[in-house]
């Protein structure tokens, strides 16, 4: 590749922190601003995914640590709940479980939810009074026996303390099939990474260190295939898969082997190109001495070339893994949307369409889907960068 990636990750040139010029200070502030702007969207999603789903829709994630105020409504009990004490009748209860929120004001009309402060007695006429305490307990008092089969409406403004929860994650794993999609994605990704690498490594070795007629020409064709965008392949392959599945009863048009091979096909030109460059650059003496010692090409390859090529294999493996993991197009074409085949990206898109207003489902699903790439990213950053750069010319 063009750029020596070894340099990435070196400690940067140190400038003395003392006596910072205004220009240097400005540069720092500018960088800080950019970094904050770049991080905010992801950070917002991360915070949102741990917020209570009722809070999510009524207050921004940036207020997650502050108390939220919102209007709510509840109904009192009916005449069946009343008790008589000292010649008056009472209906008692709570508008929400104690401790969850705090009532700041209440009223009896939806248009005037803040008529009385908590603890005040609201005069409802005919001697009837209503008191709502800050902790949510209410008391409806009447001098005569209640006769109502529906409870009275209480409107109130509540202060909701910050609340973080894992329930969004529990919900998607239990009911939205995200756990299955997660497993499916691995089922697609692991073979779709290993198969092209192995096939490409064998081919790269043959192109580098063996003699066979047409070697140069075939390699040129492989490199030429780098220019073919993935879109060029989809329609004929789709037709081909459908036709074959009609002829062969055991072959399904949408299947895991089908998508493994498709990903292998789309990844092969780049894999062969990169691995051949690496393997052809290995020292000639080592390979020749192995051959003179009587090792066949197969033995030379498995015992010598493979271990020596590990850095190149690892870089490409990371690239291909992330590419397949993050792919949506190939998955939409070669897999069905049934629960046993749908992958994370596809599932996420379905949720965006069908559950676009269920923000809590979106947040946690998105985070589950980007979790694996982020782990790979932070754990293997150096190799990741190398693989990504190597793979940046991928035709697909």
């Amino acid at each position, binding site marked *: *590749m063009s750029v020596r990636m070894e340099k990435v990750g070196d400690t940067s040139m140190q400038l003395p922190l003392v006596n910072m010029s205004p220009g240097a200070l400005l540069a720092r502030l500018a960088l800080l601003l950019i970094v904050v702007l770049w991080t905010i969207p992801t950070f917002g999603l991360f915070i949102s995914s741990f917020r209570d789903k009722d809070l999510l829709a009524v207050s921004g994630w940036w207020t997650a640590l502050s108390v939220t105020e919102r209007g709510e409504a509840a109904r009192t009990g009916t005449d069946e709940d009343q008790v008589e004490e000292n010649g008056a009748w009472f209906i008692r209860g709570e508008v929400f479980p104690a401790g969850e929120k705090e009532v700041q004001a209440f009223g009896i009309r939806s248009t005037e939810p803040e008529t009385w402060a908590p603890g005040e007695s609201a005069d409802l006429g005919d001697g009837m009074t209503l008191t709502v305490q800050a902790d949510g307990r209410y008391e409806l008092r009447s001098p005569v026996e209640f006769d109502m089969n529906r409870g009275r409406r209480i409107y109130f403004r509540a202060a909701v303390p910050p609340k973080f929860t894992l329930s969004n994650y529990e919900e998607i794993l239990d009911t939205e099939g995200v756990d299955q999609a997660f497993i499916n994605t691995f089922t697609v990704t692991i073979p779709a990474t290993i198969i092209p690498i192995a096939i490409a490594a064998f081919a790269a070795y043959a192109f580098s260190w063996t*003699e066979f007629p047409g070697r140069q020409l075939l390699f040129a064709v492989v490199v030429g295939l780098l220019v073919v965008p993935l879109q060029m392949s989809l329609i004929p392959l789709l037709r081909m898969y459908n036709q074959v599945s009609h002829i062969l009863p055991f072959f399904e048009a949408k299947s895991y082997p089908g998508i493994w091979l498709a990903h292998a096909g789309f990844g092969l030109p780049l894999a062969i190109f990169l691995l051949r460059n690496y393997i052809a650059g290995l020292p000639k003496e080592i390979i020749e001495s192995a051959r003179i010692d009587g090792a066949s090409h197969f033995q030379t390859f498995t015992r010598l070339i493979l271990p020596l090529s590990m850095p190149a294999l690892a870089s490409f493996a990371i690239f291909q893994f992330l590419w397949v993991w993050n792919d*949506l197009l190939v998955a939409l074409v070669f897999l069905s949307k049934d629960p046993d085949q749908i992958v994370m990206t596809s599932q996420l898109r379905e949720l965006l369409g069908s559950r676009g207003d269920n923000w809590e489902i979106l947040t946690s699903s998105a985070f589950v889907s980007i979790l694996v790439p982020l782990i790979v990213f932070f754990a293997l950053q150096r190799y990741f960068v190398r693989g990504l750069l190597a793979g940046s010319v991928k035709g697909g």
Partner: protein
Amino acid sequence: MERMLNAIVAIVFGVGLMLLYFYGSNWLLDRLLPDQGLVNGVFQSREKQRERIRPWLFVGPALVILGVYLVYPAVQTLFLSFFDSDGEAFVGLANYERALGDSRFVESIGNNILWLIFVPTFSVIFGLVIAVLADRVSWGNIAKSLIFMPMAISFVGASVIWKFVYAINPDIGLLNAIYTGGGNESIDVLQIPFWNSFFLMLILVWIQTGFAMVLLSAALRGVPEETLEAARIDGANEVQTFFRIMVPQIMGTIFVVWTTIVITVLKVFDIVLAMTNGNWNTQVMANLMFDQMFRAFDTGYASFLALVIMVAVVPIMVVNIRRMNREEAMR
């Protein structure tokens, strides 16, 4: 648990079958053409014959897969672009003519051109600025990691992240929270004519800037210190040094970054599909092709659109591959 087991069985099956081929075919070759031991007192090895066949066992699977998954479909797509929606009847240039009168096609071309101008430009500018700034501070590497992070996220994942920035509800969407904070009615930025495409482009810029930054940062470190020193001695200030000394020397890398992002842009599909699905005049070529393939089931027209993408991508790819080959040769 059972699902996990199924997945593991499938993975082992797929990978195992491939390894079985390589080991099995080599084992078979050794069995079918064994050394014949001493014949008339001379050791007869058939290694030469075996080694004539073995390379084909190595490249065989690659050639078959490439043939089936790239060569054949590419040729087939070219043919299908002259056929009708079922891919059955030859219609000549009908799909090509249809495109000229298709407002969706014209809209896609227009949008793609906008994407091609703005996404690479802003990615490169941001990437360059960050690379320069980050090299001057002690926490530069952390800054770079955070800027680079979106590269790891899928386009769909990124779309969800930005859905939360663009949402109309000012209690969800950060942008509208700021906008309504100034006393305005909240708006759906994805429906603002013309400008909505730019809000989609911003997502791709957000992703690609990290890529540009990493390459440009590495290139900047390759700029010889003496040239910078000489400029400073001659009285050039920081800005002049940057534009007249540094930028010209990394022009090659800027070009690489530019072309690579151009190719990404030409094939961008997931972001548009997930955010607007091409509504409100945000359609782009790759999504239009997908739309024709899976919703209209128009094989001929979709093939034509794939061909348009291919024609746009090829010249840039050829330049990039030439350059890579040249650099390989120099190594």
